[in-house]
C-alpha cells in the first residue's frame, strides 16, 4: 500500500503526479482497503460461527419455548445458507449495525461509543509521553552509540519489550498507589466527581478543563497518570528504538559529513539536519505505536478497571457475549487499518521526494 502512495512502483515517473495518476492511485488504495475490511469481517464472521455456544440460546435462555426459539432464530437469519448470512453480516456492519449485546440488550455500537473515549484518552496521553521522551532518548542513544547513554537507553527499551504490561501495571499500583500514595487507584475518576462533569468530548481531562472544574481535573489526572505512564513506557521503548535506528542510518550519510565540513556545530548537525530526515519515517512509527497501544490497552484497562474498549471486550468475553466481543474486535481492527493507512498517507504527504 505504501508503495502505491509513494509512487515508487513501476511506471511512476518523478514529475508532479497528474490528476489521472493520483485518482488511479486513490482508486487502488480504496480497493485494497475495501478488500482488507471485507477480509476482517470474514474472519470475525468465521469466529462467530465457530463458537460452540448457540447464539439463539444465549439470547433466549435455555428455558425458552420452542416458538420463541424459532422466532429469534429467524430474526437472526440463522436459517439461511452461510453465504447469505455473510452478505447480511457485511451489509449490517458496514451500516453500523453490530448486533445487540447479549448482556445489556443495547446495540453493540452504542455500548462501544460509550467506552471508546476512555481508551482514546489513555492511548493519546501514552503516545504523547512516548514521543516526548522516546525521540530525544533515541537521538541521544544514536549520537553516543556504544557509550553508556546508548547502553542505558537500550536496556530501558529492552525492558519495555520484555515486561508484561499487566504485571507492570500491578507493580505500579502496588508501589505508587498502595505504598507511596502518589497516584489515585483503579478507575477513571472518583465517584464524588463522576456525576458533576459536563460530558462533551468524553475525554475526561478535556471536559473538566473546558468546564473549569479543576478539582475534578486533578482527580482525573491522578487516575490517568499511572496507566498512561505504563502504556507510555511501551510506546517509549518502541519509539526510542526506532529513532535510534533511523538516526544511526542518517548519521552515516554523506550530507552529515557535508554539514560538519561547513563548520556547523554538532548540535545543529544532529537536531536540524539528521533529525529532519528522520521526522518523516518517525511519523509513521508514531502512528503504528498508537495502534499497538490499542493492544496493550486491553490488559491495562483490566488491571486498572479503566472503562474503555479493552475492558468492554474482556468483560463481554467473560460473560460469553460473543456479539459484543466480535463487535469490539471489528472496531479495533478498523482502527488498526485506519492508523496504518494514516501512516502511509502521512509519509506520502511529508516526504518531499514524493511531491
Amino acid at each position, binding site marked *: 500500500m505504501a508503495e502505491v502512495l509513494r509512487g515508487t512502483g513501476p511506471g511512476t515517473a518523478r514529475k508532479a503526479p497528474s490528476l489521472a495518476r493520483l485518482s488511479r492511485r486513490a482508486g487502488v488504495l480504496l480497493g485494497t482497503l475495501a478488500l*482488507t475490511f471485507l477480509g476482517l469481517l470474514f474472519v470475525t464472521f468465521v469466529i462467530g460461527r465457530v463458537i460452540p455456544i448457540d447464539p439463539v440460546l444465549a439470547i433466549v435462555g435455555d428455558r425458552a419455548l420452542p416458538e420463541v426459539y424459532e422466532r429469534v432464530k429467524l430474526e437472526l437469519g440463522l436459517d439461511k445458507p452461510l453465504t447469505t448470512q455473510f452478505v447480511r453480516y457485511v451489509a449490517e456492519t458496514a451500516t453500523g449495525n453490530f448486533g445487540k449485546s447479549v448482556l445489556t440488550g443495547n446495540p453493540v455500537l452504542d455500548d462501544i461509543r460509550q467506552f471508546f473515549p476512555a481508551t482514546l484518552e489513555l492511548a493519546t496521553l501514552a503516545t504523547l509521553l512516548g514521543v516526548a521522551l522516546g525521540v530525544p532518548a533515541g537521538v541521544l542513544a544514536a549520537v553516543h552509540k556504544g557509550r553508556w547513554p546508548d547502553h542505558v537507553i537500550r536496556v530501558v527499551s529492552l525492558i519495555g*519489550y520484555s*515486561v508484561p504490561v499487566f504485571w507492570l501495571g500491578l507493580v505500579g499500583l502496588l508501589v505508587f498507589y498502595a505504598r507511596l500514595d502518589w497516584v489515585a487507584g483503579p478507575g477513571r475518576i472518583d465517584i464524588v466527581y463522576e456525576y458533576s462533569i459536563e460530558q462533551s468530548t468524553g475525554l475526561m481531562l478535556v471536559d473538566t478543563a473546558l468546564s473549569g472544574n479543576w478539582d475534578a481535573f486533578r482527580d482525573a489526572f491522578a487516575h490517568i497518570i499511572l496507566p498512561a505512564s505504563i502504556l507510555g513506557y511501551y510506546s517509549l521503548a518502541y519509539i526510542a528504538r526506532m529513532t535510534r535506528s533511523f538516526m544511526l542510518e542518517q548519521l552515516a550519510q554523506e550530507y552529515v559529513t557535508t554539514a560538519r565540513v561547513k563548520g556547523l556545530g554538532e548540535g545543529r548537525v544532529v537536531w536540524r539536519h539528521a533529525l529532519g530526515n528522520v521526522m518523516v519515517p518517525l511519523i509513521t512509527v508514531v502512528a503504528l505505536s498508537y495502534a499497538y497501544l490499542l493492544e496493550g490497552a486491553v490488559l491495562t484497562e483490566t488491571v486498572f478497571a479503566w472503562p474503555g474498549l479493552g475492558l468492554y471486550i474482556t468483560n463481554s468475553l467473560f460473560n460469553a457475549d460473543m456479539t459484543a466481543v466480535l463487535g469490539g*474486535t471489528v472496531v479495533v481492527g478498523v482502527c488498526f487499518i485506519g492508523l496504518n493507512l494514516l501512516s502511509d498517507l502521512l509519509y506520502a504527504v511529508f516526504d518531499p521526494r514524493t511531491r
Partner: protein
Amino acid sequence: MSARAWLLSDAPASRLQARLGRAYLSARALVANPLALAGLLIVVALVVVAALAPMLEVGDPFAQDLSQRLLPPSAEHWFGTDQLGRDILSRVVQGARLTLTIVVLVAVIVGPLGLLIGTVAGYFGGWIDAVLMRVTDIFLAFPRLILALAFVSALGPGIENAIIAISITLWPPYARIARAETMTVRNSDFIAAIQLQGASSARILWGHIMPLCVSSVIIRVTLDMAGVILIAAGLGFLGLGAQPPAPEWGAMVSAGRDFLLDQWWVATMPGLAIFIVSLGFNLLGDGLRDVLDPKHA
C-alpha cells in the same frame, strides 16, 4: 592443525568445513556480546529447568495446605506460598514447562506454515500470490492479542486453543519474509537450470527455495519468541490459557491480584519469571541479529 585453525582457515576444503567455520565465527561474535550471552544463558536455563522440573527438589506444585497459605518468602519457601498454600517456587518451575511448550509448539507451527505460504506465493506469482497476500494482509490488520482473544473466546479456554490462537495471529510476517526471499531467487539461473532439467514445482520449492529462506525465518522466530511469551501470559492473565490448577504464569499473576497489597509475592514472582524469560529471548534475538545481519546494528 588445531581445531580452531581448521575452522578459521581461509581455504576450506569442504562445504562442511566452510559452514562450521562460519558458525564458529558467528558463535564467537555472539558470545563476545555480553548482553547476547546473558540472553543465551537465560534461555538455556529455561530449557534446563523445564526439562529437569520433575527432578528438581522444589516440592510439589499441586500440594495444597491451607494452613500454610500466603506465607512470605522464607528459607523453606523461597518464593512464599499462594492462597491455597502451594509453594510458589515449585509452581514457577513447573510453569516453565508450560511456557516452553507453548513457545516451541507455536514456533513449530508458525515457521513452517509461514514458510510454505510465503514460498508458494512468491514462486507462483500471479493470482495465487495476490490471494495469499490479501489473506496475509487481513491477518496483519489485527492487533495480535485481540485476534488471539477473539479466537480463544470462540474456541474455549485451554492451552491447546491458546497455542492455536497465537499461531493463527503470528504467521503473516513469516509468510512475508519467505515471499520476499523467494522472489529474489525465483528468476535466478540455478532455478532456471533445475526447471529445464524437468523438476516439478514441488521439488523446486521443497528442495531448493525453502532451504534458502529457512535462516531468515529462524532469526525472526527467535526474535518473536518474547512476544509469544507475553501474549500467552496475557491470555493466561485473562483466564484464557491453561486452566487451573495448571501453574501457568499469567494465570498465577491474575490469581495474585486479590492479594496484591499485602501478599505481593503471589503476583510478583510469576511476573518476574515472565519478564526474565522474555528478556532472555529478546537479548538472544538481538544478539543473533547483530551477528547474522550486521546492517541492522
